[in-house]
């Protein structure tokens, strides 16, 4: 028996949809206004595309996201794999440490970073990536841990080592490919977090795409609304692609085995 939708559930869904769709639609409507609201057009979108700083800041955010993803992979994949093999007794501790960033408000963490980090480190915007690795720990750890729990890791590693592969090769050619989707998930989470992060960037005085949106929004309200619509629908678009992508891969696998 499958649970059925009752009339009450339709009402709840409708109410929820209205609460979330109205602000989105209202923002879209505002963003298309031109000539003081007399007609509709794409002028506001053209405005922010031609603003100084649109491309450099978007590019900066992409660079930070890429660096964060690389750092997360290099740091977390070997660590979590090891906690599933010989280092099982450290697992609890590592799990606990990875939850700490959830407890620490980002503002507090930002103050800590400003106070503690040496000037040479704080003189480059790429410091943000190192801090993003920290605040993404709860999510990336979780993604990798779930992925590794679902494969016969010991067997795979023993097989690989018994035919003479080194630890590095085992990790690179056996473990990582078999948890590909978990690794992808961790990468995606790290990227999404870096692209949207505002608090650390603004408190450490760096310009990224989110802080740039904040700055330009003061000059042109309709332009800022268009920019918001662009950022939000961009994010929804990316997430939907990722959410629906695994299906394609699954069907490929079925074809291969057939």
């Amino acid at each position, binding site marked *: 028996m499958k649970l059925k939708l009752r009339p009450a559930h339709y009402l709840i869904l409708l109410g929820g949809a209205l609460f979330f769709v109205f602000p989105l639609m209202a923002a879209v409507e505002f963003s298309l206004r031109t000539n003081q609201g007399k007609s509709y057009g794409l002028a506001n979108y053209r405005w922010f595309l031609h603003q100084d700083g649109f491309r450099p800041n978007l590019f900066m955010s992409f660079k930070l996201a890429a660096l964060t993803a690389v750092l997360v992979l290099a740091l977390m994949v070997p660590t979590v794999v090891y906690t599933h093999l010989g280092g099982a007794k450290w697992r609890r501790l590592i799990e606990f440490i990875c939850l700490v960033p959830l407890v620490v408000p980002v503002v507090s963490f930002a103050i800590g970073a400003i106070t503690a980090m040496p000037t040479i480190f704080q003189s480059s915007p790429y410091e943000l990536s190192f801090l993003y690795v920290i605040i993404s720990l709860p999510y990336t750890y979780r993604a990798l841990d779930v992925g590794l729990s679902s494969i016969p890791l010991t067997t795979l590693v023993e097989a690989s080592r018994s035919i003479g592969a080194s630890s590095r090769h085992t990790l690179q050619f056996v473990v990582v490919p078999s948890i590909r989707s978990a690794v992808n998930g961790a990468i995606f989470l790290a990227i999404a977090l870096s692209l949207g992060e505002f608090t650390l960037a603004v*408190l450490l005085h760096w310009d990224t795409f*989110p802080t740039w949106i904040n700055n330009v929004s003061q000059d042109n309200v309709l332009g800022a609304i268009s920019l918001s619509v662009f950022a939000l629908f961009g994010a929804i678009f990316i997430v939907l692609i990722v*959410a629906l992508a695994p299906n394609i891969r699954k069907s490929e696998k079925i074809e291969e085995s057939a």
Partner: protein
Amino acid sequence: MSTFEAATAAGTSGGGSLTLTKGTRPIKIRGKRSSLLPLLPFFAFVGYFLIYPLFTVSKDAFLDNSGHFTLANFSQAFHGVYAQGFLLSMRLSLASALVSAVIGAALASAIVRIGQQSRKVLVAIASVLANTGGVPLAFMFIASFGAQGLVTKALKFAGIDLYAGRFTLFSFMGLLLVYCFFQIPLMVLIFSPALENVRPEWREANDSLGGSRVDYFKNVSVPLLFPAFLSTTLLLFANAFSAYATARAMTAGQMPLVPLLIGNLVDGNVIANQEHLGHALAVVMIGVSLVVMSMYLVVLRLTKSRS
């Protein structure tokens, strides 16, 4: 991305009490002693970029400007505008957590009943909405619920004047409304896995034993889901409590929420030489968050040990 993924995990284990399935146990390679060496990069990274900053901020909170030990920063943090800030932040976080938890749970109970594919799409969208904040979120609400907003105008046309009373988007009620926009999706994300663990068979058992819908609700679903509900509500509180970008975009300095007060002290917008006060506020914030999150962990533990 914010708290949702880890929180999803927590929600799953919260609901884990409902099923008997367990995850794979950690496995050890035979005859190998576990060494700490492969974990050194992790401990070094976390030690330097997480533990060290937190230690520094805690230490500095107890120092005055000349570097001597003092408790004055904390006594200042618990008085005047800062005490008000903490009260306001806690009130807003509590209200938004409770409202969003109830509405989010209702929404989640409807969402788990719809088809697999559309649910996947909704969950993906919820994960984006749960992470909206700052200027984009503020502008969406100004466009809809602001004085010139579309919803405000539509309601006025229908005879309801939102702005007849003291309501503005930048008041407590306005902020509450805005916070719900990212808190409700977060609740849906975290609470749905727990709901998915409720077996339809239990409903059948209730029905065949002659129980009514009220009996089922009272004796089965509420006792089963309450721990997951409670733990998620605590998480929502922590999430609202530390929200900075949205608070900054929405309040323009009118609402003294703690994250904003700290931000002002860091930027030196208010008075110079008050760094240590900022540190003390940051430490108190961690303290409040720590209390809430340990309650969350206790609730999760209790739930787990019952299964």
